[in-house]
């Protein structure tokens, strides 16, 4: 059974770890000003609260700027090949369901070259926490457009603008059956930390899209959430059981659902009972929320869906193994060799 040691109260033996305990001795090699620094800091800050011994934590990554992440975490880590981290993590969890495994990926690594593996790790509900740093650009290869770049994006590889439409990472994750999907942003360490903790506590595949700034090749791609005035206008904080509200204090707006169509209303124009109340356990409304974006709609941040108690892939596999061993005993190669039709030559 997958028994990840953990839950804060379980880690009572030994001194409480701090952020510093999770910093490795390696020099961090991201560009100065990169959003990855803030994410690294938030992850390191969140770690002690997970209550999981450092040696039981593994960070797996693929290729790209984000994928250097494991080198900077003082845990076990494996920096693998482009796009394949979810599959590596799946094998690792089959071997070692007791470990707490994080996958760090990016929009290119996770949604382009590794899109297939991301699909399957989520649909299988492998117990891993996936952090997808979305900066809407290929940074490590120096500035080509990515599968989340907006249509018409002018980059080195698309001098006349890109001709392909972007994918929404959270919509993708929800559509393929992820049991935990959230979105957060690199400029809000507190929100990142809280979101990461919730994702890490989820049993099953947890997917977190982190909107991240590449200040060299795609600076301010998320300015809609950085710019003070725009942020006030568009940021929608999701809270389970609370109405979906956003906007400036003097101009509070909310969302209502007309059938399956979301609609922005002024709070003062509708009764409170008419407002759309966020329900993390409702996948169908989460799918609607994941597609909302400025300027017509607010941008939801926080937990879109959180389905507890769904079957976990490696648990089911291990249960089969344990059952067959309990029923029939462990494997015996000598007996197997002699099973079925044999004959003796004297």
């Amino acid at each position, binding site marked *: 059974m997958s028994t990840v040691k953990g839950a804060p109260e379980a880690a009572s033996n030994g001194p409480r770890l701090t952020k510093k305990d999770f910093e490795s001795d*390696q020099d961090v090699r991201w560009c100065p000003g990169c959003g990855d620094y803030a994410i690294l800091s938030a992850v390191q800050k969140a770690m002690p609260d997970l209550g999981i011994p450092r040696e039981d934590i593994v960070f797996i990554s693929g290729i790209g700027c984000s994928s250097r992440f494991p080198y900077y975490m003082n845990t*076990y880590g*494996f920096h693998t090949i482009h796009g394949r981290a979810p*599959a590596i993590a*799946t*094998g690792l969890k089959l071997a070692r369901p007791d470990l707490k495994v994080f996958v760090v990926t990016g929009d290119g690594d996770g949604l382009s070259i590794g899109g297939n593996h991301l699909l399957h790790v989520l649909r299988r509900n492998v117990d891993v926490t996936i952090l997808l740093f979305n900066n809407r650009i290929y940074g490590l290869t120096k500035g080509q457009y990515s599968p989340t770049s907006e249509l018409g994006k002018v980059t080195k590889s698309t001098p006349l603008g890109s001709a392909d439409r972007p994918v929404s990472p959270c919509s993708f994750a929800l559509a393929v059956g992820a049991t935990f999907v959230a979105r957060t942003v690199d400029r809000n360490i507190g929100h990142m930390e809280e979101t990461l903790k919730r994702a890490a506590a989820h049993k099953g595949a947890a997917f977190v899209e982190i909107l991240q700034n590449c200040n060299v090749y795609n600076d301010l791609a998320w300015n809609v959430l950085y710019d003070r005035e725009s942020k006030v206008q568009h940021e929608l904080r999701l809270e389970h059981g609370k109405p979906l509200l956003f906007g400036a204090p003097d101009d509070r707006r909310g969302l209502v659902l007309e059938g399956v169509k979301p609609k922005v209303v002024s709070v003062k124009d509708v009764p409170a009972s008419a407002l759309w109340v966020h329900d993390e356990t409702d996948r169908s409304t989460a799918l609607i929320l994941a597609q909302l974006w400025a300027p017509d709609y607010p941008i939801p941040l926080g937990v879109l869906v959180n389905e507890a108690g769904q079957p976990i892939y490696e648990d089911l596999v291990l249960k089969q193994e344990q059952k067959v*061993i309990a029923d029939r005993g462990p494997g015996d190669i000598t007996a197997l060799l002699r099973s079925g*039709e044999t004959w003796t030559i004297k």
Partner: protein
Amino acid sequence: MSDAMAPASAVAKPRRTLTRAVIRFAGDSGDGMQVTGEQFTTEAAWAGNDISTLPNFPAEIRAPAGTLFGVSSFQLQFGSQRVYTPGDQLDALVAMNPAALKVHLADLKPGGILIVNTAAFEERNLTKAGYGKNPLEDPDLASKYRLHQVDITGLTKAALDDLPLNAKEKDRCKNFFALGLVSWIYTRPLDPTLDAIKKRFAKNPTFVEANIRVLKAGHAFGETAEIFAENYGIDPAEMPPGVYRSMIGNRALAWGLLAAAERTQIPIVFGAYPITPASSILEELAMHKRFKVRTFQAEDEIAAVTSAVGASFGGAIGVTASSGPGIALKGEAIGLAVMAELPLVIFDIQRGGPSTGLPTKTEQADLMQALYGRNSESPIVVLAPSSPGDCFYIAYEAVRLAIKYMVPVMVLSDGYLANGSEPWLLPDPKSLPDIPAKFRTEKEGFFPYLRDPATLARPWVRPGTPGLEHRIGGIEKQDVTGNISYEPENHDHMVRTRAEKVRRVAQEIPPISINGPHTGDVLVVGWGGTYGAITAAVEEAQMEGKAVSSVHLRYLNPLPPDLGQTLRQFRKVLVPEINSGQLVRILRAEYLVDAVGFNRVRGVPLQTQEILEAINQLVEAAR
């Protein structure tokens, strides 16, 4: 009731004793030819014969009935002497329809037994097979072969007249009529087949009754029908004493892994994506979860291998299997295991290529891919089993070397070994070599790339071990510390170290076993599934008094340390392969010997006769 069901005639027919026979059952892919062949194999095994089999089926699951490309066949050779191959030419051919006759007749020896199911030789089938007129009416056929025209379909139906089965169900029993008849012709015991029928249809007594009746009807037909003047006995073969079972290559690979899992007490994570002819390894392992083998049917070939790499990182034995096209997709991930220096076992069940090629046919053309099919300097260990049963030992050896040297090991099997079977003397699992699987837990002096002085292996650490937290990856690392390093001299050092580590596996290779004298005119060097054909040809040449020996390589990288000096003891070196000359190129490059290839790439095993001819030509040239 037909005459065929009448009690056995009291007239005993003469019986001749043969030393070996080659038989092929051929029919539509829905005719049950594989079952028939397998069942006859079991009968011959019970009779104590040595056996080698060659199933051959189309890539299409149910190809349109009656077509040439829909023909499925099963060939076997059985004998009272050592049998190395399924045989070149056929002593007997059973053709269940015109298409089967058309495809296979050319392989039947002049004077050979030809049994045809006359009911299938009607206009539609004849047209589909491309016959302008019924070949059975051609007098040449009966004069060239011992033609037996049997209404197998009709006799089957007659035998089942009173059973509550529909026409289709009755028709499906006809392969057992053919089996019964051939069992009579070659006097093989029906008992194992009777047992198998009872087991197979345990839930349906009517099917048991039907199949047994038809089997016996076929047998009785041989005995009573006037057309068969004699039948044949084949004495038991001289084989080493012990308990035997019939073994096919893919099952043997799977069981070799199980033996390794049991010995090491380390779980195996087997990642695979279905592909012909490797899928049956996944299916076999999935039945043996008691051995802590966790099978993972991955989303693609890349996930199959990377899951195995992830498992090895976690302290399990990561294994993946595929065929050539899948191995091509796995290349980058194998390179990661080379770089991360993790144990990884890869089975490549070679098939005809390139691209989709001939999915169900055999080939040996992935040797270069195994050795060099990855970016940059990416050495791995490469092994090749020489027979279906040898697959067991090779799989076990692959795990042993992968763990001992912290290195990927690729096993090159092929479609012929995968599905071919042989009587296999059961090994004693206790006699298998030990697998030194140790995880480092010692904190003091730990570095991720600190090496064992004898093997150059780095320590294997299970995540979860306190104090040994470390990061590895595909980026070049500084030796010992494992820190990222782009330093030129370090890279050169690491490239050489990874190569040296694989080279040191040579210390594990036993001395070469030479079949024949240690010097002479011609040394035949082979690898993989050609072992049987080469050995049979070499022994025939030796009987003819030729100074010919052979060596069969199970270790292809590194090569055996004594191979170079062995090659130099012969005037000529012949390298038969089912490719256009891969090992021969390596031997020439490695040892500067003027080795010559014998190459046929037809999707079928090499024939003993053609290798013998190549040997004889080279013997002449050596003179």
